[in-house]
């Protein structure tokens, strides 16, 4: 699917569809460009058989000709008849138009299961217009959407909306339709709602490199964007490069990544179907012959670190050649949760990443304030047994990290509660064990760690029916299929959210732990029906915990990557110390739930 496909789809739009597309678009005054409009106009008149200048050719009354007396009565009667006829036509036209608008609005209500009971025709049209234009300013829209949300049996605290949304209606509309919030719509899923303090959020998007209108296996650029409260603040392009990791620092944001490798081995050109593979091969060879020489600098991968200030200006971008040894890509996703972190050091900045010795080691690379490479260490973690560096977070004296046993992988089922080693990694790469931490449940998924107030905090979720992993939806799906006749319809298998959501929520409990000095986990907060997400440190040094509360779900039997999808609302909790009992702040952000 590329831009041309979208253009082609729109090309075939009927006039009714065109009408929908052009709603509110002021096309008057568009530039005719080089077109000779006079010539076109003449041609149109010729083709239509319209005699140009006909009116001017009408005979004018000759001077001195006797003007006959005007027959006012006849003229007035004719005018009245014309007015009556025009009025009737306009009245009929208005009725037709009103009926068309009402039908469209009603179809919209039906399509989205919005309750229309008790609303007048005008109110239905007004609400349709208000929602479909994303205006969300009509109080009636909020009433309709609240009634709809109530029908989904969402609890009051889920429907409660914070201040970081356009309007309550906007939030409810997104909630009811599984639409993730604008700034969080790309790549963010439950458990990964990384919202820095003040709702600062970053996004990365990749644009594919096209060749003769076909997608290639390469990226043209990576666009890195900063949002505050949902508003795009700046956008920086990294042509032929990918931002792999980023972290806000005191005066901007750091980004580290790699240059893209563009070579013959990885080159391919995508075609529409298998019967055009010969064409694909021809295009590939042409691409290699004609285009590859332009990318000679990209035959070998390099790494970079960059800093972008608050205005979106690139303060520095420096390249370096340290490479953390990686597992092969087939194993990569099975074994590694944590990729790398960037943080400030007394000298400048550091990049900590797992790598080497089958991940039983890490690489710590140091940079100056100006981004120049200072040095790199690659110590082994061998003395701590078969442990991998799986999670890490910046702390005052370097980084705090969790080392996990070899067998702990995202998709694996650990037979017993897992014991992790908690270590501090100094700015010089030294490793000091702080304690060991044993997960209190077999079904525990760890999502984030942080150090605040001299304590190590751990966020994750408890899966209440066994172990976390790819089988989390097994019991739900089994239940659906046990009653499949109930859900089957002409439109496929439709399981309503009010049935499904409470069942899915019952499987999850977001958990926040703080570790005692001996590593004993103390549960600080538990949020039923939610997934414990990222931890971060706020501007006042407080710990910020995001819990992604499952708010609506749907069964998706035909998708390969997930069986149950939905939406989570991001709730935020702030802790100055573990003794605090904060209330949930509704951020207004919605992230995807997919399992």
């Amino acid at each position: 699917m590329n831009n041309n496909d979208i253009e082609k789809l729109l090309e075939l739009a009927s006039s009714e569809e065109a009408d929908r597309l052009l709603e509110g678009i002021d096309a008057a005054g568009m530039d005719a460009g080089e077109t000779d409009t006079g010539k076109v106009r003449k041609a149109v008149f010729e083709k239509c058989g319209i005699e140009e200048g006909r009116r001017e050719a009408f005979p004018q009354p000759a001077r001195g000709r006797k003007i006959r007396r005007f027959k006012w009565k006849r003229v007035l009667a004719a005018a009245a008849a014309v007015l009556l006829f025009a009025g009737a036509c306009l009245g009929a036209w208005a009725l037709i138009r009103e009926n068309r608008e009402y039908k469209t609005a009603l179809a919209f209500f039906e399509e989205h299961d919005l309750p229309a009971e008790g609303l007048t025709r005008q109110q239905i049209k007004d609400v349709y217009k208000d929602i479909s234009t994303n205006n969300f300013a009509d109080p009636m829209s909020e009433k309709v959407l609240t009634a709809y949300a109530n029908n989904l049996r969402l609890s009051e605290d889920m429907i409660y909306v914070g201040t970081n949304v356009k309007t309550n209606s906007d939030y409810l509309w997104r909630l009811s339709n599984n639409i993730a919030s604008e700034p969080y719509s790309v790549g963010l899923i439950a458990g990964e709602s990384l919202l820095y303090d003040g709702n600062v959020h970053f996004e990365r998007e990749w644009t594919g490199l096209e060749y003769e209108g076909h997608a290639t296996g390469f990226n043209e650029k990576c666009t890195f964007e900063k949002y505050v409260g949902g508003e795009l603040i700046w956008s920086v392009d990294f042509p032929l490069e990918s931002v792999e990791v980023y972290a806000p620092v005191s005066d901007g944001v750091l980004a580290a990544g790699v240059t893209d490798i563009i070579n013959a081995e990885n080159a391919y050109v995508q075609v529409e179907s298998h019967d055009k593979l010969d064409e694909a091969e021809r295009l590939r060879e042409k691409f290699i012959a004609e285009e590859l020489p332009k990318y000679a600098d990209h035959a070998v991968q390099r790494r970079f670190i960059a800093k972008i200030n608050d205005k979106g200006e690139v303060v520095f971008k420096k390249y370096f050649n340290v490479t953390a040894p990686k597992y092969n890509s087939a194993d990569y996703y099975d074994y590694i949760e944590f990729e790398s972190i960037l943080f400030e050091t007394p000298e400048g900045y550091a990049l900590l990443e797992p790598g080497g010795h089958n991940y039983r080691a890490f690489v710590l690379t140091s940079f100056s304030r100006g981004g120049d490479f200072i040095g790199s260490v690659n110590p082994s973690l061998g003395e701590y047994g078969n442990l991998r560096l799986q999670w890490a977070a910046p702390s005052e004296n370097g980084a705090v990290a969790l080392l996990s046993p070899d067998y702990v992988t995202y998709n694996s089922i650990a037979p017993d509660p897992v014991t992790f080693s908690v270590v501090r990694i100094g700015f010089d790469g030294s490793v000091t064990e702080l304690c060991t931490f044993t997960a209190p449940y077999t079904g525990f998924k760890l999502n984030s760690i942080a150090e605040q107030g001299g304590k190590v905090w751990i966020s994750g979720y408890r899966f209440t029916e066994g172990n976390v992993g790819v089988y989390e939806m097994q019991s739900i799906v089994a239940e659906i299929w046990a009653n499949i006749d109930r859900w089957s319809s002409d439109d496929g298998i439709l399981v309503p959210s009010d049935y499904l959501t409470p069942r899915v929520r019952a499987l999850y409990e977001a958990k926040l732990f703080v570790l005692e000095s001996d590593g004993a986990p103390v549960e600080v907060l538990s949020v039923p029906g939610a997934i414990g997400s990222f931890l971060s440190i706020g501007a006042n040094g407080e710990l910020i915990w995001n819990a992604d509360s499952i708010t609506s779900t749907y069964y998706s039997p035909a998708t390969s990557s997930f069986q149950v999808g939905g939406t989570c609302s991001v709730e935020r909790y702030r802790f100055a110390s573990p003794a605090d009992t904060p209330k949930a702040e509704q951020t207004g952000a919605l992230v995807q739930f997919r399992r």
Partner: protein
Amino acid sequence: MDDAKRVMLIKTDPEAGMAGLMDDHMGLVCSIVRGRLGGVCTKEDIEDCVSEVFAEFYRGINNFSPEKGTVKALLCSIAKHRAASICQKASRAAGNIPLDEAGNELPGGGPSAEELAAAKEKRRKLITAVEALGEPDRSIIVRKYYLCESSKSIADRLSMTVSAVDTRAHRALGKLKKVLEGINDE
């Protein structure tokens, strides 16, 4: 002038009515036709196509029904179809049958009823997704990919920078692609 009055005027005074219609919509039709035929056809061919669009509208004026859409929408629809048809003919004349149409030349190679229905459904979802984009992204997408306006022209109209238009268009396209890929995935 609203559509009802415009149509009535064309019927009662074709010269004035059509002149007004062309004054209001010439830029729109030119933009669409040029967007499709630019680089494929000559300037004269483009002008001929534009005049054909207005002539076709005039010939079918008695069939115009406000229930089926506005004058503007009908002109857009005619312009799109006309330009696509001319583009196809031009490609064939040059011996280049577009890849996606090559199969249609073979007996029975045209799209089946199911394929047409699937394409229609896909378009319906796309248009719904475009409507759900919100402003200014919706306007940017419609102007750029339906009305074939340049980023600069869109930027001028929406009081934005060209790069902001391109960035927003890119992000909005990403969302639309996701919707459509969702259809494919399903």
